[in-house]
């Protein structure tokens, strides 16, 4: 029997369609179909000035907007050869780690909901709200923050930033314990996840998996440790690894990653130096507002950047970051004009999703839901 799961199925986390060939309740063949949310972001970016691409990156992985912004900004900064001030580096680290927690919270809520634990969703969204409030305080937007800029941040951090983050550092560890009390020894949750969707380390590498899906199989690859970017070499944290490569291991890893993120945030908050929130690079980065209102040169630079943008040298760079889903890479090719010649996004969830058939074939149909949840896909990013 052939069964269509999706595109409008609550457990596919968006518009994903999986064509399942079933023998009784066993999946013989699974074929994922994607593209229902294809918006052509890569093509559109070719017609936009560099700084106008940033709002589009938010809309790919809409559960982790800051990570997407960071990847793009770092790639363009690499292209330009810009170095960031310390304060920007620390602020970016704090915000992207908060993003990781927010994304994992949504994941743990929806994943548990898929498997029948309804209350988890409400708890997870309650905690996520605190992080969303920080986005709003920083950028004025709750979800599509567009807070990072090429050369720094859009605005300075809000006055009560430290207080809010400290509150999160205090509250979330307790709440994580609550979640684990709800799920770790929950008989239903365990039987639906342990030994389900197993992928071996070899297969995971061969399928180009990254992020918690790869680490769940015990492969130690985290871009933050392997090729540090944005000052991650300054912080101490561990990379949790799984053993069995099943859904339960990926769950444990994400829970532990949230704790490690809190550790990084704590260190970054303590070490955050005062200083400018943008790098001084005339002609590339907008000058401070006071200067624009009082100095002629700054006004000219401001006008020129907004109307003409900036022109990076000819060349191509690849910048990878560890987004909550895995390795998010931007390949930006510049032809010396003020618009990207080509922007390629290496979407982690697209490539992780391609291993879905390998994880579900030969198993029960109900496992498909658990496995899709455990890959942690966001269809906005899969289709772009």
């Amino acid at each position, binding site marked *: 029997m052939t069964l269509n799961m999706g595109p409008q199925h609550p457990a596919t986390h968006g518009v994903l369609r999986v064509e399942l060939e079933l023998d009784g309740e066993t999946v013989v063949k699974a074929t994922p179909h*994607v*593209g229902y949310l*294809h918006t*052509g972001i*890569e*093509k*559109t970016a*070719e*017609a936009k000035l560099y700084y106008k691409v940033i709002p589009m990156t938010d809309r790919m992985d809409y559960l982790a907007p800051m990570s997407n912004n960071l990847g793009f900004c770092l790639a363009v900064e*690499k*292209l330009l*050869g810009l170095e960031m001030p310390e304060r920007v580096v620390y602020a970016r680290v704090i915000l992207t780690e908060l993003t990781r927690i927010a994304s994992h919270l949504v994941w743990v809520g929806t994943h548990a909901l898929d498997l029948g634990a309804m209350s988890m969703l409400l708890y997870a969204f309650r905690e996520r709200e605190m992080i969303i409030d920080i986005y709003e305080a920083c950028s004025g937007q709750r979800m599509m923050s567009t807070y990072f800029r090429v050369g720094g941040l859009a605005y300075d951090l809000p006055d009560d930033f430290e207080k809010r983050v400290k509150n999160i550092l205090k509250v979330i560890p307790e709440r994580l314990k609550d979640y684990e009390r709800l799920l770790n020894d929950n008989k239903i949750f365990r039987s639906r996840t342990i030994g389900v969707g197993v992928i071996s380390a070899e*297969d995971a*590498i*061969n*399928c*180009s*998996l990254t992020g918690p899906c790869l680490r769940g199989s015990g*492969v130690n*690859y985290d871009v933050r440790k*392997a*090729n540090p970017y944005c000052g991650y070499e300054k912080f101490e944290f561990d990379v949790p690894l799984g053993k069995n490569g099943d859904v339960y291991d990926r769950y444990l890893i994400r829970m532990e990653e949230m704790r490690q993120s809190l550790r990084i945030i704590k260190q970054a908050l303590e070490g955050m130096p005062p200083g400018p929130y943008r790098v001084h690079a005339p002609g590339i980065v907008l000058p401070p507002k006071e200067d624009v209102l009082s100095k002629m040169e700054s006004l000219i630079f401001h006008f020129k950047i907004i109307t003409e943008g900036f022109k990076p040298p000819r*060349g*191509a*760079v*690849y910048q*990878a970051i560890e987004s909550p889903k895995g*390795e998010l*890479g931007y*390949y930006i*090719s510049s*032809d010396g004009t003020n618009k990207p*010649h*080509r922007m*390629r996004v*290496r979407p982690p969830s*697209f*490539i992780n*999703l*391609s*291993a879905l058939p*390998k994880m579900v074939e030969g198993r029960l149909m109900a496992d498909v839901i658990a496995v899709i949840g455990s890959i942690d896909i966001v269809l906005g990013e899969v*289709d*772009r």
Partner: protein
Amino acid sequence: MLEDKVREFLKKNFEEAIVREDNFRNQQSFYIKRDYLYDICRALKAEPELEFVILSDICSLDWLGDVEEKEGRFEVIYNLYSLKSKYRLLLKVRLAESDPTIDTVTTIWQGANWMEREVFDLMGITFVGHPDLRKIVTPDELEGYPLRKDYPLTYEMPQFSYNKNEPPEVIL
């Protein structure tokens, strides 16, 4: 250090395949000839000192109208990563407009399957020997290859068969 090792290895075994090397912003990349791609990939993965076991990404770009077009209009970029040495290497292949085909690497890395399908769908490059080369992100009715530079961006709608002859709406 690995940079030199990669260079030595490629020079020794595939001297005739290398067009040139590029080191923009400390990112080593090699332009190689199309016919050698499969062999080079397999050798880079198997060589015990290098072990480029992960294929991070495959992407493509179109140099239409640029000075670089004379070397071949299309460029396919293979993004290899070595887990052991934490090192990234880009292999770039130029393809002529008249013959945009290249060997598949799905037999080396399974992960290449969807990446190659996406390049095929959006850029129109055919991967010879791919097990399941179908469109992946665009609808079946969509004609043309959206990421090519001669595909108009000025249409409000993508060109489907039903609005193909309508005049373009310019959005600037």
